[in-house]
């Protein structure tokens, strides 16, 4: 955002600019309680798209990032509050509508949440919004008192004139400030003066998440709403050949059965009836090209591809010759499976489609894409589509789909039945609905010289591109290289003179998508496991081996040292336990982890402790950083221990949490988090804790058992002692 405009000014509203009218006058968020409880009494002061202050002193912060657990409904208001000098207890949060004013500052014309970018991309924007509003309030008070603004200051929701000991609450200044010109380039605080940023603040959304009142997409309701479930093809790319809905329609409560692009929708008064109705459908599917598809076949094909040259992602020095000449050559092949995001709240979408409008209530990470998709399906203009971003019961990337699958489908159904409808995905639908983290196969080689130093590194990656076929393709795919496929692989931090990375991006009929930490979720596993293999091959300590190669990467080195030191690297452990270490940079942040692991004779792995060090530059809410590390460690560990979506006859073999397991309380390791103090610019926190987990754990397993895990998830059979 370049300039702020005082959108509460009448003259501005008269110009009819989109954000003005929509925001101040017509914008209300139904169903949100209590964060957005009540409405701002008018007149209000809305100096920009992010702040509205009422005569009741309440400060409403309009947040354009979706709250999916990562804490943006607290950390972003902290940025505003730091400069606004308001009373923190008077703050409430409203989700932003879809509007260009709320576009992501780094994504062009799109509003959305992802890539661990929320704090980084709003760091200046939100502070400037707060500072500008404060300057106007101070000026308003100075004008009322007829004193010089320089003698006035703002504190805890008041403007104070020390010389005359007068003060006025922000609420009393609202009318006056609303009539004022918006100053440009109000200076921001020096970080040394921060009072809120960098301090642990209680999350603003906790109260509504412990009393059942927080409203998720699944909980949204409007008058006259029906419930729908969809029978989707058993094989990706399949189509309905024919269907008989007689039995379904005969069931109580079933209102309509309609065929749509994605399958057959059963619409009923209530979910359970719709679901029973779906069970009673008789559908003959046209299974299409993918019906013979299997994970086993794919593994073979990927392994074959990995032996052929791919598109070159990186070439430094003369890796081929260097490996050929090396005193020792080490080779390995790694693989990881498709993974489902499995957010705790299964997908859902409520649509109220009218002749001239389309209102949508859902938990989305990608408002602009979803709004445009809804416009396209409904035949309305994008401006006629209104999206209410609800609380997200987890996202992890699944709710940021450039193809807008769950939103577009719901609009199709609403269009067909001409009634408001909430489409609910069962857990099985969600698990089998595609858009997975791709399966990856990696072939990797290195050369060691006589001293055990790495002379060359060669890495071939095979896996689907998540970007190809999306609007991001132009920016993110260059010369056949999807940047997300090789992130964390072509930019390894270690000082190695000769490096080669190439990529195969086979086209497979399985829909794929970003999954918390994206490409790093697989490259860190391969790179950091293989580094460990090389350390052992060189007869060196895995920590020291890495450390020696990180001289030119001081931030990697510093977190590695911090994690090692806090974990007591090298000190004795109880019988049967072993440590493993890994370090990885992603989304601008540096994370090192040390895992403490034991393996039972049955081969069952127990992770006792994970020590985590992060350097994310400046941080806003340290307690949130800590929470996100805990969360990422559970997420990464779940994938390492259990995660696999597999196919047979084109069908997904998993369906629910009994066969796509999650880490549970009894397996929860003790997690310790250390945040590196830093003056660097703020970077990502939601994702960077995921990548190092799997390699740290597998490296610990090797240290304890001598067995190298090269294929995830970890299989007890491979570790069983006879």
């Amino acid at each position: 955002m370049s300039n702020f405009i005082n959108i509460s000014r009448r003259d501005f509203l008269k110009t009819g600019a989109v954000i003005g009218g929509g925001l101040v006058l017509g914008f209300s968020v139904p169903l949100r309680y209590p964060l957005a409880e009540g409405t701002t009494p008018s007149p209000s002061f809305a100096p920009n798209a992010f702040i509205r202050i009422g005569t009741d002193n309440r400060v409403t912060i309009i947040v354009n990032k979706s709250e999916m657990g990562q804490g943006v409904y607290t950390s972003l208001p902290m940025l505003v509050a730091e400069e606004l000098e308001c009373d923190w207890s008077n703050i409430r949060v409203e989700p932003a509508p879809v509007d260009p004013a709320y576009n992501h500052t780094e994504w062009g014309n799109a509003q959305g949440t992802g890539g661990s970018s929320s704090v980084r991309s709003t760091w200046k924007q939100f502070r400037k919004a707060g500072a500008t509003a404060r300057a106007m309030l101070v000026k308003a008070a100075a004008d009322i008192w007829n004193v010089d603004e320089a003698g006035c200051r703002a504190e805890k929701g008041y403007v104070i004139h020390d010389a005359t000991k007068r003060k006025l609450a922000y609420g009393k200044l609202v009318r006056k400030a609303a009539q004022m010109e918006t100053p440009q380039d109000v200076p921001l605080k020096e970080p040394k003066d921060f009072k809120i940023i960098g301090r642990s603040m209680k999350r603003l959304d906790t109260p509504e998440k412990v009393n059942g009142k927080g409203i998720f997409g699944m909980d949204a309701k409007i008058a006259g709403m029906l419930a729908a479930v969809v029978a989707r093809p058993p094989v990706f790319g399949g189509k309905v050949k024919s269907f008989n809905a007689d039995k379904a329609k005969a069931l109580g409560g079933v209102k309509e059965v309609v065929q749509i692009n994605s399958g057959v929708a059963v619409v009923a008064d209530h979910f359970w009836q719709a679901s029973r109705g779906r069970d009673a459908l008789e559908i003959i599917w046209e299974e299409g090209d993918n019906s013979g598809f299997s994970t086993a076949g794919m593994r073979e094909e990927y392994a074959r591809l990995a032996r052929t040259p791919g598109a070159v992602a990186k070439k430094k020095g003369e890796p081929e010759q260097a490996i050929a000449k090396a005193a020792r050559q080490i080779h390995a092949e790694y693989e990881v499976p498709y993974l489902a995001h499995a957010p705790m709240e299964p997908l859902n979408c409520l649509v109220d489609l009218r002749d001239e409008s389309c209102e949508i209530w859902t938990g989305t990470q990608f408002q602009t894409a979803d709004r445009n998709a809804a416009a396209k399906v409904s035949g309305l203009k994008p401006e006629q589509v209104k999206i209410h971003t609800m609380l997200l019961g987890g996202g992890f990337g699944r709710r940021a789909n450039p193809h807008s699958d769950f939103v577009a489908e719901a609009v199709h159904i609403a269009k067909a039945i001409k009634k408001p409808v909430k489409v609910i995905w069962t857990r099985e639908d969600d698990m089998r609905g595609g858009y997975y983290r791709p399966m990856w196969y990696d072939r990797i080689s290195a050369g060691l010289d006589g001293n055990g130093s790495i002379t060359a590194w060669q890495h071939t990656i095979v896996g689907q591109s998540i970007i190809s076929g999306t609007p991001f393709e132009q920016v993110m795919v260059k010369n056949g290289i999807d940047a997300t496929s090789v992130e964390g692989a072509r930019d390894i931090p270690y000082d190695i003179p000769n490096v080669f990375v190439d990529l195969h991006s086979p086209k497979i009929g399985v829909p794929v998508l970003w999954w918390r930490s994206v490409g790093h979720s697989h490259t860190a596993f391969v790179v950091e496991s293989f580094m460990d293999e090389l350390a052992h091959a060189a007869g060196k300590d895995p920590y020291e081996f890495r450390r020696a190669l990180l001289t030119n990467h001081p931030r990697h080195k510093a977190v590695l040292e911090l994690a090692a030191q806090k974990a007591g690297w090298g000190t004795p452990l109880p019988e049967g336990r072993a440590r493993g270490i890994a370090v990885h940079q992603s989304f601008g942040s540096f994370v090192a982890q040390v895992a403490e692991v034991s393996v039972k004779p049955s081969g069952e792995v127990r992770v006792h402790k994970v020590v985590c060090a992060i350097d994310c530059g400046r941080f806003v809410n340290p307690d949130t950083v800590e929470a996100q590390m805990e969360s990422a460690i559970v997420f990464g560990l779940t994938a390492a221990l259990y995660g696999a979506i597999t196919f047979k006859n084109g069908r997904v073999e998993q369906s629910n949490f009994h066969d796509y397991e999650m880490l549970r309380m009894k397996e929860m390791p003790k997690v310790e988090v250390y945040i590196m103090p830093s003056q660097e610019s703020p970077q990502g926190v939601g994702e960077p804790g995921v990548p190092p987990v799997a390699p740290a754990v597998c490296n610990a397993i090797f240290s304890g058992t001598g067995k190298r895990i090269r294929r995830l998830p970890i299989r007890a059979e491979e570790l069983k002692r006879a």
Partner: protein
Amino acid sequence: MIRLEINGKRHKVEVDPDVPLLWVIREHIGLTGTKYGCGIAQCGACTVLIDGKAQRSCQTPVKNVQGKKITTIEGIPERHPVIKAWIAEDVPQCGYCQSGQIMEAVALLKSNPAPNDADIDHTLSGNICRCGTYQRIRRAIHRASSMMAKGGKR
């Protein structure tokens, strides 16, 4: 006609007696704090108290709970030590699993006011948190337990 007592209030609902209690609570009674996560008693998001015991409402046909006392998250008072402890530890992330976690914790502390880690593991392992808030849940249960011991009893 099914008669239910939820959070001390009596309700009559016209519903198929085999419908899981979860959907009756959410769609007929209109209390949406109780969540759907799996529908097969694997995740605990739908946990409610039935005569004081934590039960999976997704696997409880509504006809089975007539005449019993049902408590949902909305029926737990704001001053309950478990709620206070959850806020003190800032447990929730996305929050979707938390109603179920809290109901499970309330039931645990009622039967075992001073649970150790093994007790917590045993009881709470039926409740999945995809956001991984387990460490904080554990801390919050210990905190609630000591609050109760100090007389914040309920």
